[in-house]
């Protein structure tokens, strides 16, 4: 469903992505792991059209991701994103955050969007917080609202960029369980994460990125428990030691 071919991306003199090839099939949960600075966020941002790229191709379904084309907005509603720091709209309530896209981008009637929005908040266990502003919610609650906001667009896939990294440890579980619920419902997900337990349990496949390349990929269990490459082994050892 999402296909990357020989993707190259540079920031000035710094080449961040050096030829990425990857495919994410419909309904798959793919976890992207790798050291900080290896280009994981940049990769997600390219797929969502938040960054341009110099060479290669990204396609979503049969659509080419090209930041300069007007079609890019349609792709962004088809592939939404959940950010490390939530990025909820602070001047709008939880429910307003969730219905913003459906109403103003997709033109869904307000009553219908709100009914659906409340159902989504209920699904992530936050029905009672519909009228709360983000500032009054915990990090875990904010991230769950952000997930509901992404879901409200009826996306074909959701990209997660370290969705639990900014959370206090005791709040990680509630976000992971919302993601687990999503994965079980068949959502296509590309997840950048340092939560190896989530990757092992929920990931259909794991991609390991290092130095701007995908160094190793395979079924989650295999990559995480019997990594072939030395660099993967080093990385996993360092992550698990923490």
């Amino acid at each position: 469903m999402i296909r990357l071919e020989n993707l190259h991306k540079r920031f000035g003199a710094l080449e961040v992505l050096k030829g990425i090839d990857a495919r994410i099939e419909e309904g798959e949960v793919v976890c992207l792991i790798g050291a900080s600075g290896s280009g994981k966020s940049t990769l997600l941002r390219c797929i969502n059209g938040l960054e341009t790229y110099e060479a290669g191709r990204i396609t979503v379904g049969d659509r080419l991701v090209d930041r300069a084309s007007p079609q890019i907005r349609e792709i962004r509603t088809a592939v939404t994103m959940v950010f490390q720091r939530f990025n909820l709209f602070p001047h709008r309530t939880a429910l307003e955050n969730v219905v913003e896209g459906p109403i103003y981008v997709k033109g869904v009637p307000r009553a219908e969007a709100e009914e659906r929005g409340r159902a989504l908040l209920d699904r992530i266990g936050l029905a009672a917080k519909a009228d709360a502003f983000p500032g009054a919610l915990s990090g875990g609650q904010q991230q769950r609202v952000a997930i509901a906001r992404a879901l409200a667009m009826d996306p074909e896939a959701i990209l997660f960029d370290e969705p639990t990294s900014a959370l206090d440890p005791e709040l990680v579980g509630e976000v992971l369980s919302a993601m687990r619920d999503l994965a079980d419902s068949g959502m296509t997900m590309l997840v950048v994460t340092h939560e190896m337990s989530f990757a092992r349990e929920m990931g259909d496949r794991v991609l390991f990125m290092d130095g701007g390349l995908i160094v190793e990929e395979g079924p989650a269990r295999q990559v995480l428990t019997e990594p072939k490459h030395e660099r993967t082994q080093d990385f996993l050892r360092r992550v698990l030691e923490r």
Partner: protein
Amino acid sequence: MIEFLQSARSYLPILLDGVAITVGLTVAALVLSTALGLLWALMRYSGIGPLVLISKGIVNGVRGIPILVQLFYIYFVLPEFGIDLTAFQAGAIGLGIAYSCYMAENFRAGLEAIDKGQIEAAQSIGMSWGLMMRRVILPQAVRTVLPPYGNTMIMLLKDTSQASVITVAELTMKGQQIATSTFDNITVYTLVALLYLALSVPLIVLASFLERRFAAR
């Protein structure tokens, strides 16, 4: 004291005519400077090369010229190119343009204070630039912009007195006229000062109210 009140009673109707013009000029210049200031700030924020350059050029250019000179220019020089304006129109346009640059700097500061994550979130749900500005960026910028906006408004009110040099019959001009014919400088200028104060105090109260109101959330 009684003498003061008696003369005040005879001057006040004339001065109140001036107050009406001052208020009208302030409102007209405020509307124009807000609209233009927003335009300059949005051009700058757009990140589109030529627009950024034009915006920077206008804001820095206009800020470098005294308001008085701008007013003279619009009132005395434009007619030579066939653009005839009344003194009031020239005053409103001159002050509006001059103040659009202060406004632009306020708005820019407000826009740039917004977390870049907001832009990404808006884009990631497919918002266009215009929709993002309207629904996400501007409503948040309003909070940071309001306190300096209130202050700029008060400065503008006081700077309308400069329009007296191009014969706009606003409060300061009326005061001058009475003072030169009566030599009653103390009474006249005390009244003029009190009237300006009476106009600015509500603005000061409004500005601090808005500030509190928007900081609350």
